[in-house]
């Protein structure tokens, strides 16, 4: 039996070739595993990005997942680098050992090195893209936190303002209730005093009637006195006839002795006149007495009536004065009430405007969320394209994808900065901001 040295035996068995083959197999396996990990990471990422559930997209686990993806890619990258470093040393000795072996083995090895280099480039670019996505999400997260905080503070603001409006309105209602009571009391007083006006009307009616009656009475007295004129005329006639008779009697007396008969006729006439005179005197006396009595009675009645009327007038005057005071009070009451209601309405209007402004601010928050949503959609499209390229080995990776992501992020940040300018500002400020070129839509 021939004795071979270990080296002879190894060369004879082609051990070096086998060893190189094993190394190459190991490297392929490492690469395969690395690709599997990479593919798994990409699939997870795509699955999460294309999910329609917002909660999935904005899950808190996102940053962690991206870290893991980045870590896997880095590990894969390191494994390949490690493999390549071994390959960069090993090909030449292996090639020496492969002398005499089929040329295809060396070509395969070179292809593998090239493919590994391409894979490395793709992985480096993928790593950069995922890093960029991580940066984007890192930007979105605080922005969304800001939006949530703004929404919360906005909602609290609206509630506080509405509560303030409610308190003011409640205060006004209480005031109006109290004023209503005050007004009712005042009306009751005015109604009570307004009876004085009715009484005054009745009293004046009575006074007119009484004056009419008094006029009639005085006319009666005047007629009675007028009637006395006839009696006075009778007395006057008697006086004239008595004078005449007296003159005749004087004449007849001169002739008494001769014509005594004629004197007797004169004397009879004088007696007759005396009788008439006496009767007229009685009538005049009676009439004067009657009128005097009537006037006395009237004066007594008038005095009593006047005292009563004076009391009545005093009472009515007091009531009328009180009524005037009540009307003055009511005028002041309504003036004050009007001023308070007007002032309160202005205050309420101002507060409601503030609520309206705050509600408009909530709409601005909605626009911010909408911009984030639009930015996500744009990024999703870019990432879907990247994912397609990553899963398809034949596709070339485009460094422009990375630039597109960066541009998209920059565009979003620029638009969002316009919104940030309005945080804490009123609707009026926002409206004024429009003139400065701010792209905020107000309703």
């Amino acid at each position, binding site marked *: 039996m021939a004795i071979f040295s270990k080296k002879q035996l190894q060369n004879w068995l082609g051990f070096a070739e086998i060893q190189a083959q094993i190394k190459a197999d190991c490297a392929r396996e490492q690469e395969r595993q690395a690709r599997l990990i990479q593919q798994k990471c990409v699939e997870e990422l795509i699955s999460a990005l294309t999910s329609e559930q917002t909660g999935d997209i904005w899950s808190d686990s996102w940053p962690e997942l991206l870290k893991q993806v980045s870590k896997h890619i880095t590990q894969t990258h390191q494994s390949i680098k490690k493999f390549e470093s071994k390959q960069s040393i090993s090909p030449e000795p292996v090639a020496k050992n492969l002398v005499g072996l089929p040329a295809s083995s060396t070509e395969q090895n070179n292809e593998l090195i090239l493919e590994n280099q391409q894979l490395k480039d793709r992985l480096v670019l993928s790593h950069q893209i995922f890093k960029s996505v991580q940066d984007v999400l890192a930007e979105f997260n605080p922005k969304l936190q800001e939006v949530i905080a703004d929404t919360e503070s906005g909602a609290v603001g609206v509630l506080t303002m509405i509560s303030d409006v409610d308190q003011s309105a409640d205060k*006004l209602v209480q*005031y109006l209730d*109290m004023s209503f009571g005050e007004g009712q009391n005042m009306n009751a007083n005015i109604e009570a005093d307004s009876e004085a006006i009715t009484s005054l009307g009745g009293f004046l009616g009575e006074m007119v009637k009484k004056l009419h009656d008094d006029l009639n009475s005085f006319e009666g007295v005047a007629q009675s006195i007028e009637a006395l004129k006839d009696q006075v005329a009778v007395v006057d006639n008697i006086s004239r006839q008595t004078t005449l008779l007296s003159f005749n009697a004087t004449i007849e007396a001169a002739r008494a002795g001769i014509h005594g008969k004629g004197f007797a006729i004169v004397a009879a006439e004088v007696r007759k006149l005396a009788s008439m005179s006496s009767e007229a005197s009685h009538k005049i006396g009676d009439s004067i007495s009657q009128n005097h009595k009537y006037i006395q009675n009237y004066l007594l009645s008038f005095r009593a009536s006047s005292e009563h009327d004076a009391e009545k007038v005093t009472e009515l005057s007091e009531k009328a004065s009180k009524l005037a005071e009540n009307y003055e009070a009511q005028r*002041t009451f309504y*003036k*004050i*009430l009007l*001023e*308070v209601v007007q002032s309160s309405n202005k205050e309420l209007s101002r507060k409601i405007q503030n609520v309206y402004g705050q509600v408009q601010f909530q709409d601005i928050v909605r626009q911010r969320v909408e911009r984030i949503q639009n930015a996500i959609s744009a990024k999703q499209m870019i990432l879907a394209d990247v994912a397609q390229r990553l899963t398809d080995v034949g596709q070339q990776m485009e460094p422009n994808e990375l630039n597109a992501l960066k541009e998209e992020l920059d565009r979003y940040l620029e638009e969002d900065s316009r919104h940030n300018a309005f945080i804490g500002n009123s609707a009026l400020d926002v409206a004024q901001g429009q003139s400065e070129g701010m792209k905020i839509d107000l309703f």
Partner: protein
Amino acid sequence: MANILLVDDDPQFQLMTKTMLIKAGHTVTQASSGAEALDVFKGNRTNFDLIISDVMMPDMDGVDLLGRLKAMGINLPVLAISGGVKNLSAGFNLSSMTMLGALDTLAKPFSKTELLTKVEALIK
């Protein structure tokens, strides 16, 4: 100690209130109507810490005074006082003043302690 503008048309009541305030160490400027009080402000006397104002006064009442001061941008604390005149209750007058921005109210007649307690609280 505070610089106080006292607005009241009743001379006796004004004297009594002024005495209470001065004895407590405050400086008091008097006005007998809302119109007079406005004249004080038009004369650039704005260094007041407090206004004590009656409600019902001739020329210009307390309600008008508060509205004018607001329009002039003067936002000093106001203590409204009222005894209820012209058939209007003190409650209505004082509530109206509160609605228009008076920080506190005091119905007439009031004691020295009541007045000074309210004043101290308002000038803090």
